[in-house]
């Protein structure tokens, strides 16, 4: 793992409503040798509560290094809304957001990048591809710099 990340372990926030998907993602990230803590959330509300805190300002996570894995199709809200709020928040806007979803609609992809998403990945149905993509992502995690907590 990256030296900087090791100093202050980066927490991976995984917002994924499908338990199966969450498990497969975690398995494959681990297979890539990423050992950072992963906090799974199965719905949008819980994730929002954790990320922005009880007061909704995000000050709770001011000093945390976060990497967010975000699904767009959540049962209670659209992942796009969470992405928008994250990128508009003073304390969280620098945290990398990886959109990981089944939607491969060009309009949706464009919209996410417009809103400031850092990486957009479509979940392939073909598991070989899926596993490969997640492992690549894991490898990517090991090399990227996440803004350190101040």
């Amino acid at each position, binding site marked *: 793992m990256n030296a900087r990340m090791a100093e202050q372990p980066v927490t991976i926030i995984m917002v994924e409503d*499908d338990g*199966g*998907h969450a498990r*497969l993602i975690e*398995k494959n990230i681990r297979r890539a040798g990423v050992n950072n803590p992963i906090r799974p959330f199965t719905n949008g509300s819980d994730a929002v509560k954790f990320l922005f805190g009880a007061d909704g300002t995000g000050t709770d996570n001011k000093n945390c290094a976060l990497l967010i894995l975000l699904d767009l*199709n959540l049962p209670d809200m659209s992942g796009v809304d969470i992405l928008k709020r994250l990128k508009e928040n003073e304390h969280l806007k620098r945290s990398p957001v990886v959109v990981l979803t*089944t*939607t491969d*609609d060009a309009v949706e992809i464009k919209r996410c990048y417009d809103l400031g998403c850092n990486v957009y990945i479509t*979940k*392939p*149905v*073909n*598991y*070989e591809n*899926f*596993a490969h993509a997640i492992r690549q992502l894991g490898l990517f995690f090991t090399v990227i710099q996440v803004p350190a907590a101040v």
Partner: protein
Amino acid sequence: MIFPAVPRFPVQPLLLGAGFALLVAIGTATVWLAEQSAQDARSVVHTINVQEKLSNLLLNVRRAESGQRGFLLTGRQQYLLDYRDAAPAVETYLAELRTLMSDNPDRGPVLDQMDATARTKMTELAKTIELQASGQHEAAVALVQSDDGFKSMNGLRLLVERTLADEERLLLARSDASRRNDARLLAVSLAGMALVVLIGALSVFLVQRTSRQRESARNELAATNANLERIVAHRTADLTEANEEIQRFAYIVSHDLRSPLVNIMGFTTELEALRSDIFEEMAKLREQAGVAAAHADARESGGASTDPLGTGFDEAITFIKTSITKMDRLINAVLKLSREGRRDFKPEEIDMNALLASIAQTVAHRATEQGATVAVADLPPVVSDLLAVEQVFSNLVDNALKYGRDGEPGRIEIKGHTARAHVMYEVRDNGRGIDPHDHQRVFELFRRSGPQDRPGEGIGLAHVRALVRRLGGTMSLTSELGKGSVFTVTLPRRWVGENRSAA
């Protein structure tokens, strides 16, 4: 609104006819009455004339008598002047009276009597004057004193007075008749006028009523039309909404179906990985338990594939994975269709010759490999969505190439012509053809026809038909098994976008 057609139709002409008949009757009556009136006037004039003549007759006889008296008394000739003047006048008046009274045979005897009396008087006068002139004064006086002259004069006076009275009565009666006639004439004229005015008023009323009815009918019609348009607009909006709903539904369903598919595929693969671990573990255990060494080779060759247990496992996993792959393809097809359905179409002028040339270019390599030819005739241009039209013809040409007949070089022809507001394009091939039973089926999603020896999902034609429909056109198919197929695409010559019903 239903009009009371029976009373309205004949009343108007009937009224007009009645009006004309009435006018003619009034005219005739007026003419007749006027004629009558003129005749009355003539009668009155006649009567007055007769009265005048009678008076003059009497006057002249008296003048003659007075002249005679003067002459007898004085013997002077100057008194005879009056006599000589009056005597021929009496003759004249008598003759005139006879002429005037010839129309009335009743007066004949009276006139004769009058004539005779006057002549007797005049003869007596002539005789006395003659005697006086010849100097027999006494004889003349004696003749006068005989009172014959007085009697005849008196008789004449009475006759004239009686006749005058008669004429007076006649005049009165005639004036009366004339007045009555005039009154009748006036009454008839007034009544006729009143009737004409009444008929006129009735006609005006009827015309107004008819025009009012027409007006209200027109208003009603206009209202119905407006309503109809509103209903059509409403239904169109409903349909559009329903269509969009279906599109969204297809999109959401297919999209959400992918999610569990990822899991099924993922964990099946995980299971497959686990399987090798389990079988390896089992083999180790068996070895430890000292099972027959015969199995060892199989174990070493990499995971118990000859083991019936392993074979069953592999078969199950293979089927699951094949099915998942197929399901993924189908879901992707639905997604693609629904995405196409939501794409915004933009009408533009399309050079069909250039478009088909580029499609032919794309398939040229494949065509050459199959020994097939693609012939494009001169095609009329069309205003439509370029991408959609390109997809339609790519699919049709692709199908024509794909379903050729074995042992027969393929021949694909594309022709087109303009028909009023539409253009028709034909894609004809000499391929295997389609069973008439399947002519509808081939346009349905995931449905195919004939031997399933070519790759495909059964999406192409469904997609083509959906596109053509969105472009306001229609698709038809003529085909017979083993004799090739003709797909005809009919598009509006100038598609203006959005509204299908515009075509």
